[in-house]
């Protein structure tokens, strides 16, 4: 580790840089502060032993060179300054909300980072549980909502971990043998990790290939579904269904092109085109991205 306080050779001493870090986050204490070399994977131990009050500062003597700074506050927010502190760096760095890691929150449970990415269709992850033989108790992270496409950075000690994740409708996903540290550093949570997947709520159609349609709208049930062949043949119309979030149905289709139109309980419509190949089982997730543009005028709001 390069950031040991130096007491060695004269050459080393000349490379020491004095830095004052100020907590400029109002009303919130900084409870831990990590500074480590940009080329290192271990963030080391906290550089402060007592909480850094708002508007107070701490002076540090650091070796020169690129490094990362990561601070955690009492609310669990993290503040990151990556790789921008060099020999000619300022003497003072103010930690404030400009540095908060909104998009990639950090959770501090050790020295090495593990990125957990939500690669699900539509559903956010609300709870992450990490277990390991080395842990006295599981690490439970339940104060972030990790939306699809987002990730969360968890700092863990060396070890092999198991992960349980619970999405916003209560389904559990599981992954074992996650090694920390690992060169990949990113673990994606995908729908295939789900424990006890629910069976389809229904089967329809008389085609030769099963096609799965899943409601991946987290807060709306699908109340209408039309599957229309693009060749003008008769389609399938399901008008009075209630496909709950996470539920799916199986539609047996013949190979060909189809337009699929779904309506949710709020009367919003979702449209997608699909191509059903021979003998290939497809899975369609109805997600918000397929929301149809509805530009119609709203009903009069204030009837006088």
């Amino acid at each position, binding site marked *: 580790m390069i950031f040991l306080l130096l007491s060695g050779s004269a050459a080393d001493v000349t490379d020491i840089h004095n830095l004052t870090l100020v907590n400029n986050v109002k009303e919130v204490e900084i409870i831990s502060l990590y500074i480590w070399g940009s080329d290192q994977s271990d963030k080391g131990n906290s550089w402060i032993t007592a909480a850094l009050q708002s508007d107070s500062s701490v002076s540090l003597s650091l070796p020169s060179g690129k490094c990362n700074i990561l601070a955690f506050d009492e609310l669990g927010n993290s503040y990151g300054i990556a790789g921008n502190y060099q020999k000619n760096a300022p003497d003072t760095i103010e930690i404030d909300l400009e540095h908060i890691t909104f998009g*990639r929150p950090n959770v501090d449970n050790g020295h090495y980072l593990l990125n957990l990415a939500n690669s699900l269709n539509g559903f956010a992850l609300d709870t992450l549980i990490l277990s390991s033989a080395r842990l006295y108790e599981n690490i439970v992270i339940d104060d972030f*909502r990790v939306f699809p496409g987002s990730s969360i950075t968890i700092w863990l000690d060396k070890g092999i971990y198991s992960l349980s994740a619970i999405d916003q409708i209560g389904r559990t996903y599981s992954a074992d043998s996650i090694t920390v540290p690992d060169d990949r550093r990113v673990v994606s949570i995908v729908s295939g990790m789900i424990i006890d997947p629910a069976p389809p709520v229904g089967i329809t159609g008389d085609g030769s290939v099963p096609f799965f349609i899943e409601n991946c709208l987290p807060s709306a049930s699908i109340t209408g579904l039309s599957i229309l062949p693009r060749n003008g043949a008769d389609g399938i119309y399901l008008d009075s269904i209630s496909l709950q979030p996470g539920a799916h149905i199986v539609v047996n289709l013949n190979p060909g092109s189809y337009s699929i139109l779904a309506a949710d309980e709020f*009367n919003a419509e979702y449209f997608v085109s699909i191509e059903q190949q021979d003998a290939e089982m497809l899975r369609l997730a109805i997600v918000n991205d397929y929301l149809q543009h509805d*530009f119609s005028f709203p009903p009069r709001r204030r009837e006088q």
Partner: protein
Amino acid sequence: MGSTALTDWLSISSFSWSLMRIAIVWFAFYGAGSLIMRIGVMKKYFRLLPSVIPGMLIYMGITALLSLFHILTRTVLPVFIISGALTGLVILYLRLKKLFSRSSLKIRHPLIILPLMLAAYLLVTNLMIAGRPEMNFNDTHVTYLVQPDRWLNDGQINFLDETVFSAFPMTSEMLLLLPSSLAEDRIDQLILGQLFELSMTAALILFSMVILGLGWKWSPAALISISGCSTVLLWSHFAKPDATALFFVTLALIILIKQILERDEKFDLSAFVVMGLALTSKLTAYFALVPFLVMWGYIILRGKPGKYHVLSGAVLLSILPLIFAVRTFIHTGTFFYPHASLKSMLKPEWLMPQVDLTFFTFNNRSSEFFPSIGFFQNIMHYFGTWNSSIFLLLGGFFLTIRNKYLTGRTIVITAFAIYSVISLIIFYPAWWGAKYGILLIPSAALFGLYMFRPLKYGLLSATLLTVLVYFIYDTSISPTEHYGLRFRNELIESYISQEWSVYGAAVLEEQPELGITLWMNSHLPDDSTVLSFYLPKRYFSNHRWINAMQYPPAAHLYLDNCLADEIEILEKLDINYIVIIEGNPAPFDDENRVELFSRIGRGDLLEPLASIDGHTIYRFCPSNL
């Protein structure tokens, strides 16, 4: 529920249907105005007033009246429009019949056909540009088309307090009610608004030529100069008041120019009504008041009209601005909010707190974020936007310097020069501010053509000059943005084939927040109030949409508050939801100003609801704390 494909507009039939509805609106103005102009007093004192102007005033009155009864709806207003349009069609038919029975349209100059074709081509392609909905242009989506939309939804002209621009005078927004009421949905409404505004530029050419007595053979030069001016086109094809102000300012000045140059001593008050409308369309029209007053001053000095004339003019000029100023006063406590000089009078809720945001600095084009430009470079850019009108103006003036009535022409050109100097100073740098200084471009072109008229080869030289300048401006040496021939040809192809094939331009600009806005429309209660920390566009939203930086009570969030203060501000505003750009709630690094940002994603206070296209919506839950 109805859904609209974003490219339904891309067809000749759809384009024609849009044009037809715009024509209906103009016929309605013409019909109502023609009836008014039959009144004796109008004929006596408003000889130079185009019939559409009183027609516009009539319809502004009708919208106000319908608003009083809360029936200003998409059902009731069209009834009045159709009635007026039918009247207008009948009157026009009778007039044209009478006109053609007296004379016939003879083309004595066959060569005029070529520039005429170019002019028609420019006009049609300009309309096609306006027929493409501008999805990501802030001004329209923040306020200018939002107001007519909300008024028609609510059945009345109400004061939308979530946009400070509601305090502006709103002649343009009231006129936009007419095409808006004929729209089928919000995309269609956007297109009609754009086409209506662009049609103002064509209309101002027509009416100005009639006032100046320029025959139809001057129309190619006028059309190429004005419709071919890319800056005019750019700022006239949005559904915002620029073209309306351009329309009124041009007509007002042209009426005065007519009186100056033809030494017309008759008592005419038309210019004052029109200038009053200009002043209530866009606040930058007040700068055009300078040349207006210079010309009026000359007319007064020269003709020595009676006190009654001067007083009547002043009253007519100020009556409309005063009406809107009183409305603004009732709501805000000052007459010209948000440009309030008397801040002590301002109601506390409208007082914008002094917040020093990086965003505001970035919006200041003379700030350090933008390169400064030199004195001559600035002048070059400013007049570069004038296209051929500056050449017509200067050419016409110098070529007729030995002709009689030089004083009048000198007064007019001096008035233009004063306006230009003011624009150059106030709207620095010109690459940004030229858009505010374009109000005199059409009148410069028309006045220039008028000066070419007595010359032996005036028509030929003026037409050649405009064509030549147009084609020079179509090359890369153009000092401004331009809509080239290739772009226009591909546009025509796209409309015909219904397949977008314009090189380098998307069929539609992307509006990044559109997905989350439409999701909110269908998934949140109608009476919700949404606070956006950055995104200002509210046009497509069905909800009360407040922008934290632009709405004075919400801007207090950026002051030195504690979290409890911020929660109190949000509660007072009845905020239900907060929308932010994911991972970047305050672009330009202004995050530090708001304590609430330390609670984003932390569960209790701001409960994350949905994330679409990089935008996240949170439910504001102070009761959870």
